[in-house]
């Protein structure tokens, strides 16, 4: 059986999985982007409402394992109210640090799927602004 010091499925990760924060869709998002992990079928999408370069509101949707969904939920909590420039500076270490558990190589893609959605989404809008 899993040992008592097994920290992988910590209570707050399960809580974010079962009760995801900011879950759903925005009606008129400024940015909307979705990514999947074809290996395991995990899907995460995010809708952003951005005003004056600040993420005013955010929702995520998707399906998949506890790690991918909890990671997305945690990330949306962090992103709400953050400037897009700051959001772009969030990196892998930040996301894994937020999860607070040791992620095995087999599960790293699950943990980082939401970050990929953020990166592609955020930079996509930057491109749109320049046009």
């Amino acid at each position, binding site marked *: *059986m899993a040992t008592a010091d097994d920290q992988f499925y910590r209570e707050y990760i399960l809580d974010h999985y079962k009760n995801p924060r900011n879950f759903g869709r925005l009606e008129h998002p400024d940015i909307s982007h979705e990514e999947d992990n074809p290996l395991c079928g995990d899907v995460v999408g995010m809708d952003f409402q951005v005003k004056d370069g600040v993420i005013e509101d955010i929702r995520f949707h998707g399906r998949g394992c506890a790690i991918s969904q909890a990671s997305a939920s945690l990330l949306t909590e962090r992103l709400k109210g953050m400037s897009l420039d700051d959001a772009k500076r969030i990196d892998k270490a930040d996301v894994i640090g937020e999860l607070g558990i040791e992620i095995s190589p087999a599960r790293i893609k699950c943990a980082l799927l939401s970050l990929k959605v953020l990166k592609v989404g955020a930079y996509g809008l930057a491109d749109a602004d320049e046009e």
Partner: protein
Amino acid sequence: MSTLTYDVTAVRRDFPIFETGIAYLDSANTSQRPRQVTGAMLEYFEKFNSNIHRAAYRIAEEATVRYEATREKVRAFINAASTKEIVYVRGTTEAINLVAFSWGRKHIKSGDLIVLTLLDHHSNIVPWQILAAERDARIEYVDIDERGELRQDQYAELLKQGPKLVAFNLVSNALGTINPARDMVAAAKKAGATVLVDGAQSTPHQPVDVRALGCDFYAFSGHKMLGPTGAGILYGRRELLEEMPPFMGGGDMIRTVAIEGTTYHDLPWKFEAGTQAIAEVIGLGAAVDYLSGLGMDAVRAHELDITEYAYEALSDIDGLTMFGPPPSRRAGVVSFALDGIHPHDLATIADRDQVCLRAGHHCAMPLMTRLGIAATARASFYVYTQKEEVDRLVGSIKEAQRIFA
């Protein structure tokens, strides 16, 4: 060996990996290898390591004899007519690509129909999609019913359209479904099609007779049947192989090479270019010996016993859905899903208990889409699987349900 005397404990003693304490439930992915296989390979490396078919010294002759001996072992194992019909490849994927490239490019023309099934592994889908795109050919897929078995009525309808090629797996890797291959091949031949059977999941687990089956091509991998990775087999009927152009050009597959052109070697070497996986082929021969020693009827009976045990144990678990047909019509594969728990999370929790379980789409994404799911958890069994390993899986499932409750 009868089923009553099948001694799984004795079999397990041949597999040193079980000394690590793992419960290995992923043999449909790749099997473990017994000492007899690794020993045969080690003997090659330590006693007669050299290249085959070229050198005039004693150890090279020994290497060549051992390497070629696997061909006769495999021929007898699948009851092919001749060793000329046994082509060494890296595995099932290469075997199917060889047929798609060599036979396919010669015979598949614009508008031709290729019939595949939703149970097929990506390795029996993608090569045909590439060929179809190149040749502007058409692919139709046989659907499944609610039990995960091919819809034979729809298959019969597709055959009426006169397909040029029919390709399907004898056993589904994702669900374990055993397809009625002999009837399906006979019907396809009657409709005038050339038939390839993907034997990756059948050859390791049940007696195979390619002549009784009646197919034109039959492909399988050594690493799923106790052999090493990197050695597999393409069986092809001699008439077809004779008229097929080579797959890869290079050394060993030629008779003479001149600046003006090249004449090719006889079967089966025409399809074996470059330095071969000598140790791996020798290992595959040892694996065939090992399985022949157990007897494939006994292997099938043992796996059926384990599968029935697992099917029953998993049926008792609330919130667990199993996919595929009942045990009597499936190979040693149980694919399932748990309410509220993603297969990857289950696999991670099982791994904490040293239970090796597969989670994912099993390289059968069209099937997963058809079932309306992204992934399943899959336990698969083999000659060394014991009921205690199934009990440990049940323990991991209950642990996962406790964590996710």
